[in-house]
């Protein structure tokens, strides 16, 4: 008598897959043959010494830079060259290292721009305020208010973002990215310049966004404590190359990683 074979469900395909990505700026190699995978719904941290190419990698994923070599696969579709607007349409949202908020607008307006792609009515319809335009505007505002509530920045709702303290601006930028209800969210140093308490709060927001929205997160961060707490998966870059890739506990003890941070030449 034979027992029926145990069939395990196949592992879910990675949400994001980078294969052999290379990028140069006028002869300076920013990235060399970087390959890794990000599983759906995981929080993946990209770490490494300064100048390792982390921001460049994020720019490649969001379509701001075009890699010389290599291929990206996101949600089953591959491409070698993508435009930022196209990335947005596929469900990728991001924040920037040096805060790229719209200085001339309020917090509410900034967050509302994040969900831009959900609107269908054109300029003329919005000028004459057709029922559909009005409905969409109301919906946009409700969505934005929900995000603002989630991030606890209601009191800043009508303040022009240029007047806000740094930590709050970073939160608003996260809000703008969340408003798009993205599948993948890329965060470029979301905790830079924050106090300990602010970092705690920001970590909560990221974890909640990951849990409730189901967004996959790829973040660049320098604070090791934060990285270890938040991430499921660690990728380490040094001089444009990937030198480690795996679970946080494994990577932190990796010889090459320690050497890279301590500056040992290899």
């Amino acid at each position, binding site marked *: 008598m034979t027992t029926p074979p145990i069939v395990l469900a196949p592992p879910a395909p990675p949400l994001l897959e980078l294969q052999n990505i290379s990028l140069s700026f006028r002869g300076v190699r920013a990235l060399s043959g970087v390959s890794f995978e990000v599983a759906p719904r995981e929080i993946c941290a990209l770490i490494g010494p300064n100048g390792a190419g982390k921001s460049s990698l994020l*720019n490649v994923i969001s379509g*701001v830079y075009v890699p010389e070599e290599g291929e990206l696969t996101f949600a089953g579709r591959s491409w070698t060259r993508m435009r930022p607007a196209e990335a947005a349409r596929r469900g990728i949202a991001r924040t*920037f290292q040096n805060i790229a908020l719209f200085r001339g607008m309020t917090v509410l307006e900034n967050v509302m721009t994040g969900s831009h792609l959900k609107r269908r009515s054109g300029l003329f319809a919005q000028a004459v305020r057709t029922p559909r335009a009005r409905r969409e505007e109301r919906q946009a505002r409700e969505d934005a208010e929900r995000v603002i509530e989630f991030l606890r920045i209601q009191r800043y709702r009508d303040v022009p973002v240029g007047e806000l303290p740094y930590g709050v601006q970073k939160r608003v930028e996260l809000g703008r990215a969340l408003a798009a209800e993205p599948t993948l969210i890329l965060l470029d140093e979301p905790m830079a310049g924050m106090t300990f308490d602010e970092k705690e709060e920001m970590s909560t927001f990221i974890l909640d966004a990951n849990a409730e929205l189901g967004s996959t997160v790829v973040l660049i961060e320098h604070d090791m404590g934060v990285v270890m707490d938040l991430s499921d998966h660690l990728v380490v870059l040094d001089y444009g190359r990937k030198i480690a890739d795996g679970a946080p506990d494994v990577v932190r003890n990796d010889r090459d990683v320690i050497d890279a941070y301590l500056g040992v030449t290899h």
Partner: protein
Amino acid sequence: MQFFIEVLVGGLLAGVMYSMIAIGFVLIYKASGVFNFAQGAMVLLAALTFVSLIERGFPFWPALGATLVAMVLLGLAIERTVLRPLVNRPPIVLFMATLGLSFVIEGLAQTVWGSEVHGLELGIADTPLELHGVMLSKFDLFAAGTAGALVLVLALLFNKTRLGLALRAVADDPLAALSVGIDLRRVWGVVWAVAGAVALVAGLLWGARVGVQFSLSLIVLKALPVLIIGGFTSIAGAIVGGLLVGSGEKLAEVYIGPHFGGGIENWFPYVLAILFLLARPTGLFGERRVERV
């Protein structure tokens, strides 16, 4: 063929005149990041001051000297009263301030001097000179020579003197220049004074060529395509741009103009500039802007 060369050379020489106006812009832009819309008004003012001194019986050289002093003082005054209060503002504000400044200078000039045309004699007769069968204007050649001398003097100033070094440092990175102890306000004062002097030279040459009248301040509109093609930060670019615009304008007027009924000189340089910009968004010699995200 000969006709073509004549038109071409005529255009090139006219272009040199444009370059001289453009150089004034480049100087100020290079050192303080301001596009000085009032440069045209300054050229006009220089020409008017000189002419009225001559008409009052002053001999040539003292009149020139007095006007030079006046222009330098004007430059210093502008830096002090208009630019210093606006020092940290965005470039658009500075541009608009120079716009307002041009109105002030023009209004002042018109109130004091009225609007008649004044003749200006530099002692160079506008007689034709024949070279290899091509007719050239003696005056235009003199102007080209002056422009060349001016560029030489400026090049020496920038590259061989300590002051020039300071100017280049400020142009490159004002903050870094500050940190090595360069007095920004002195440097800017000098730059505006030099620009005033350049305006004087340009004013004299243009005034001699077309007479001293109010359309002179519209010269700035001709300089803009020159600067766009040549880039705002390069004197070499101003020369090349001027030559391109001058020759392009003349050639277009002669060869393309008749199909449109003439009068295309006004807008042709602009269309040329647009085409250049589409190919090189920062001009031929300009600095390419790198955005870090």
